[in-house]
């Protein structure tokens, strides 16, 4: 570990925190339907969209209608995506003549993008036409991100409104999110990326004759516009196979820094939106503190492990840590930080190959995802995941003192706790269950690239990443097989919607409750005690669930590595 490395990490945290208030202020205005700086340009488009869609922006929906609207939107999005992939061979913007994507891979990829997972069983530059990149990937990057954000907003409304059945209008929320937040930032962001070196062209791949006279075909495409939203919307599906490690997706250390900030920016700011809507910004900061504590702990372990390096290589006289599968322009500090950021949020973009991380360095991304990606988390998804954990934590606190637990002036009762437990229990069922099945299925084991405990980690990582809707991978595993395409898609689907639906159900039941004025007996939810309690509940619930699985994978591998046992 170096001082420069830690300085970069500190600078990153400072920039993210500095953006929380201004972005939170702006997003709060957008979802309250107030006038913003962009209104003169965007409002006419917004009104036109409502007109063709027949949406009355003043009318609101109860939680069930909101949920059904969201689901219908996803079914449609899935169909468009699937059809584009299956027919890309006949459609325009296909200079490389890519043929139709196979049915199981199309299914996996479409589910993966509507659930904001963006698992890469496809190899971008070898499989997809430019039209698929734009109309499929880019478009769902926007919509799945917007969905995450509006579900979080609906849940916040549930907590902060009283005696109403309505939690907002899905159509209005999603339109405003896309038009006022995601698109404007992406336009500026895309231009920054192109300036920094990311291609944005519809031209065919370029044939170059290298300095030594060899042939090199250089894949290009409309990359920057896709990368901008893939980071901002915590989607993470790469234009290229190597994702953000590819010099075109992430040309410099500067673009790398901006990309990391953009992964966290909206998710962190949503805690502030929560505080503002709850009438006390300290409520938001307390949540951000919980996330911050867990995040910094993860960064410290990952950076330490990667700097310590691989025992087998250190014994050859090499020094400087683990550079296998990393890029020189980023180095170890920015690669470790990126790995923690991308898995804490549900981004899943990678600027280094996680499969080649040290055992403990690669365990941190897994833990981040297994906790349910609540450390900042996916845009929106992180906040609603965290609020679900808070419901449990408050419930635990209520049990300790023997009174009905309250949060931001609302009583937490049996129904909310049941919904929260459903969301928390269904995730491990997916990733532990499928990993167990895969470990005993010879055809699934055959996909492993690295023998020994690392191979088990590859399978565990695959299902963890799918369930958590992350999308990063221990990339050595051959995931593009019927078994993994189908089971992975199920894990992604369940991981997404069995979080969203309970979250919206909680929103609905909370909105109907009356506000309880705070009294001396109310447990304060803005202080250190609360932060400690929530961190404790997350670590205990999480740890008990997945520690045994981690012991079989990364932990046993770490012990093998330090004793120089190879496989």
């Amino acid at each position, binding site marked *: 570990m170096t001082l420069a490395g830690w300085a970069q990490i500190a600078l990153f945290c400072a920039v993210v925190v500095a953006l929380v208030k201004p972005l939170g202020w702006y997003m709060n205005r957008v979802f309250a339907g107030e006038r913003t700086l962009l209104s003169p340009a965007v409002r006419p488009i917004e009104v036109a969209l409502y007109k063709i869609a027949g949406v009355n922006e003043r009318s609101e929906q109860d939680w069930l209608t909101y949920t059904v*609207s969201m689901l219908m939107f996803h079914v449609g999005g899935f169909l468009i995506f699937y059809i584009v992939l299956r027919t890309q061979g006949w459609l325009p913007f296909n200079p490389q003549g890519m043929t139709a994507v196979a049915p199981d891979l199309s299914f996996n990829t479409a589910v993966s993008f509507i659930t904001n997972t963006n698992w890469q069983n496809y190899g971008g530059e070898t499989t997809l036409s430019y039209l698929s990149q734009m109309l499929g990937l880019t478009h769902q990057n926007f919509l799945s991100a917007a969905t995450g954000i509006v579900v979080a907003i609906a849940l916040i409304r549930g907590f902060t409104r009283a005696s109403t059945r309505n939690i907002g209008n899905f159509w209005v929320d999603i339109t405003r999110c896309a038009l006022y937040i995601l698109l404007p930032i992406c336009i500026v962001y895309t231009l920054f990326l192109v300036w920094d070196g990311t291609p944005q*062209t519809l031209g065919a791949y370029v044939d170059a004759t290298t300095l030594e006279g060899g042939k090199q075909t250089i894949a290009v495409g409309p990359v920057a516009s896709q990368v901008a939203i893939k980071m901002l919307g915590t989607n993470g599906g790469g234009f290229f196979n190597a994702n953000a490690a*590819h010099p075109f997706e992430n040309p410099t250390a500067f673009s790398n820094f901006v990309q990391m900030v953009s992964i966290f920016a909206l998710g962190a700011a949503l805690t502030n939106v929560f505080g503002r809507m709850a009438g006390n910004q300290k409520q938001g900061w307390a949540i951000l503190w919980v996330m911050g504590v867990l995040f910094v702990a993860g960064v410290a372990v990952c950076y330490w492990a990667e700097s310590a390096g691989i025992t087998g290589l250190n014994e050859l006289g090499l020094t400087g840590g683990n550079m296998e599968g990393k890029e020189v322009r980023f180095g170890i500090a920015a690669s470790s930080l990126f790995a923690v950021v991308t898995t804490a949020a549900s981004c899943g973009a990678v600027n280094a190959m996680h499969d080649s991380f040290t055992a403990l360095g690669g365990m941190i991304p897994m833990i981040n995802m297994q906790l349910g990606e609540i450390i900042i988390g996916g845009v929106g998804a992180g906040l609603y995941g965290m609020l679900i954990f808070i419901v449990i934590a408050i419930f635990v606190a209520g049990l300790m003192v023997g009174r009905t637990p309250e949060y931001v002036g609302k009583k937490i009762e049996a129904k909310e706790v049941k919904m929260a437990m459903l969301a928390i229990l269904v995730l491990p069922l997916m990733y532990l269950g499928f990993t167990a099945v895969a470990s005993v299925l010879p055809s699934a084991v055959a996909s492993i690239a690295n023998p020994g405990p690392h191979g088990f980690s590859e399978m565990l990582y695959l299902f963890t990443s799918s369930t958590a809707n992350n999308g990063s991978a221990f990339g050595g595993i051959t995931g593009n097989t019927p078994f993994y395409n189908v089971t992975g898609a199920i894990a992604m689907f369940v991981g997404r919607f069995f979080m969203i639906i309970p979250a919206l159900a909680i929103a609905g039941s909370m909105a109907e409750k009356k506000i309880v004025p705070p009294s001396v007996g109310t447990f304060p939810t803005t202080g250190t005690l609360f932060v400690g309690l929530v961190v404790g509940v997350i670590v205990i619930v999480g740890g008990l669930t997945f520690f045994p699985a981690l012991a079989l994978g990364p932990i046993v591998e770490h012990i093998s590595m330090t004793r120089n046992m190879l496989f």
Partner: protein
Amino acid sequence: MIKLFRPAFALLIALTVLTGLIYPLAMTGIAGVLFPKQAEGSLIVRDGKVIGSELIGQNFTSDRYFHGRPSATTGTDPADPSKTVPQPYNAANSMGSNLGPTNKALIDRVKGDVDKLKGENPGVPVPLDLVTTTASGLDPDISPAAAYFQVPRVAKARNLPEQDVKKLVDSHIETRLFGLIGEPHINVLALNLDLDGAALR
């Protein structure tokens, strides 16, 4: 339910066109005007021929050139299209080695490379990045240490004084942004192009 079909259908189509077609196509147009060189992939053209991209590494094997990092990219076997074979720096199929820390294949590969490099420049510690594969398989950069390590070989192959080659390397070091972000590095292709230029002068 039925009432929801119209907004679902209409908004989905409208937002799909907006974010999936208008946005990327408009950005392509604007970027092409504002930053035409980067938008095309930062291509280096000499005498009307593309010789590479500033951002994409190339496979250097000659003693006369500085070498980049090991690359694990593969490509179709020219002799048998049903097979894939190692094809370092294949810029149409980016990938890393994905070898884990306890994989014998990783340790053996690195050991082989270390032994080879030790023979080339005895007594000098082997730089880490010269024996570990890049994440993308296309890393355009090496560390300053990796460049200095190769100076004696390149100088000898080109019959140049080591001092001159070292000076050239020094002039190519890109430092940390604001002294803080990223790591110092050297673009191998740019360095080699300059090396050829210096030889011509």
